[in-house]
């Protein structure tokens, strides 16, 4: 005799990942797909699932959710391997060197490119830069900033404030705004930003730049893995720079 009974669940907690019907074909195509052996192929597919060539958006960068719309065309593939084996400092140094070699002068840190978007290194003359923010953080932070703007009358960059102040701010949010922030952190389309002034920023996902020791479930990276990761990162930056140069920037 079984001890179990049939118990209908009238109101289960719904999952937080979206159903496929939540996306338009274009949005689906812009999700940062990845296949292990070939991200370029995944990028190619993105154009196909959107219904053909001409799909808007660009999947570019190395991080989860790192994607950036530049000119409305797909100009580069997602990078070939993860770079989560590189320490952020090493990554940043490499990026700065490559930009410098190409003649860009990343002298500034620009924290007000757009709500929620900043550049770690910024060339003010040519409107080019990079950041190391995670796409996920970016989207939720942008939604945060918009909510806070309503309450405080000013736009603030959350990461620039101490954590206890952030907690204070959080209490000011209405339940609807909390939902808005939560949804923003979960939906890919909120990560898409088009800079109206034509500026270009290369976004890297900070999550991917963590050294692997910080993941409790993973072994430390090997020397070969680090080398491969740096090589990949370098390749991605070069593709970005080539694109900029092809646009005369």
């Amino acid at each position, binding site marked *: 005799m*079984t*001890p*179990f*009974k*049939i*118990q*209908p*669940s*009238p*109101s*289960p*907690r719904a*999952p*937080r*990942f*979206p*159903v*496929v*019907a939540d*996306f338009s074909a274009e949005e*689906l195509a812009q*999700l*940062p*797909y*990845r*296949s*292990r*052996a*070939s991200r*370029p*192929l*995944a990028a*190619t*597919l993105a*154009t*196909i*699932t959107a219904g053909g*060539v001409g799909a808007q958006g660009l999947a570019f960068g190395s991080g*989860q*959710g790192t994607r950036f719309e530049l000119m409305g065309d797909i100009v580069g*593939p*997602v990078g*070939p391997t*993860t770079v989560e084996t590189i320490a952020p400092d090493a990554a940043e140094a490499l990026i700065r060197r490559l930009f410098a070699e190409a003649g860009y002068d990343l002298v500034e840190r620009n924290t007000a490119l757009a709500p929620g978007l900043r550049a770690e290194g910024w060339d003010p003359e040519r409107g080019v830069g990079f950041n190391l923010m995670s*796409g*996920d953080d970016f989207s939720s932070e942008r939604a945060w900033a918009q909510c806070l703007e309503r309450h405080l009358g000013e736009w603030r960059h959350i990461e620039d404030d101490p954590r206890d102040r952030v907690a204070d701010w959080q209490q000011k949010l209405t339940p609807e705004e909390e939902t808005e922030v939560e949804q923003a*952190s*979960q939906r*890919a389309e909120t990560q898409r930003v088009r800079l109206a002034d034509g500026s270009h920023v290369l976004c890297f996902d900070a*999550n991917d730049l963590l050294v692997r020791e910080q*993941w409790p*479930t*993973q072994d430390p990276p090997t020397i070969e893995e680090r080398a491969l990761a740096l090589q990949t990162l370098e390749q991605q930056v070069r593709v970005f720079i080539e694109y900029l140069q092809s646009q005369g920037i």
Partner: protein
Amino acid sequence: MHLTLHLTHACNLRCTYCYTGEKFPRGHMSEKVAIRAIDWSHETTPPGEEIDIVFFGGEPLVRRDTLERCVEHSQRLRAETRRPFFFKVITNGLLVDEAFLEFANRHEILISVSCDGVREAHDASRCDALGRGTWDRLEPRLRLIRRENPYAQVTLVVTPKSVRWLAESVEWLFGLRFRYLHLQVQHEAEWDRRSFRELRRQYRRLAELYVARMRRGEKFFLNCFDSKIHSYIQGETLAHQRCSVGRGQVSVAPSGRMYPCVSFVGADDREEHRVGDVWSGLDEEKLAGLACRMQRPKPSCEGCALTDRCSHWCACLNMRTTGRIDRVSPVVCEHERMLMPIADWVGNTLWKERNRLFLHKFYNRAYPVLSHLEETLEHWAEQRGISLDAVDEAIANLPDESVAFATGKE
């Protein structure tokens, strides 16, 4: 059309949970019946539509000669009519050898091996006719199968006796580089609260293992979570692909009698479940009656919001657990309510991280094509000692049209 041929009732094993009925030493399917079954499916399936032939038993490799004749016959039909045929063999693995693997690779036969995992789990139920465990004999063959066939699947039956080794078993099989694992909980077993608590604990361990592998970008299929996540993401779309009791799927017993699905065949002695035979075709009236019973709303599930994602619609499962296709077992209900939140935790975690493999696997409709392409090239390169970088480059340089074509043919 899915055509399952039970090539024989005979089997070299005596697994304690087997639902395929008594093992008759001479209950084989004749070549004449097997060929007729294929011809029947060919005649009744619209031109150009694919036919999936599954070789089942007993142990189908006991009748390897019949299996080979079936494949050759289907290939001839394919050549003559351009109808696509796909093959799968569900085997206990003990009779697999290099010659069969070569045949399977030549004819693109998908191999599904039954193995319950580590020795303790496997030998708890999967014994030979003398009651001896079979893990020692299977293990080297598993390695051989994986080496020769990267797409091979493994089916693990989970019972109250084996549940405590579940996560360990899955890890072990991943360690052997099997990527397609299918867990099949033996719902009809004597599950109690304690063994279910253990099952929950094991599912949670598996959930962590799943997330860790996805974070490392390691591709795999684990049905317990994949199917539940998929059932939510695809929603209505998936609901239409579910069991339709004998529609588009039929199991043929060695005698040539037809049944709606594998669990109904048993010892081929239940007249009420027989829906035809290979000579006179399907009994449409009987099929319609079965479908009607199956599709009727189940009063026990009234008001449940999980019905779209639940396995209560599986006639085979209901048959095995309650003896009726339209009655749901409380064990199934308990299991579904336990599994879904764990699967959702996996999905929520990976979605929050925007894990690329997760997005690729569940939202990219071309994923099966891409994944197969990658594995084929990887296997090809591995066998020739070519580096995977070269494979990556080859895929990257594929013309867009070829990918579009492959996607269209998904």
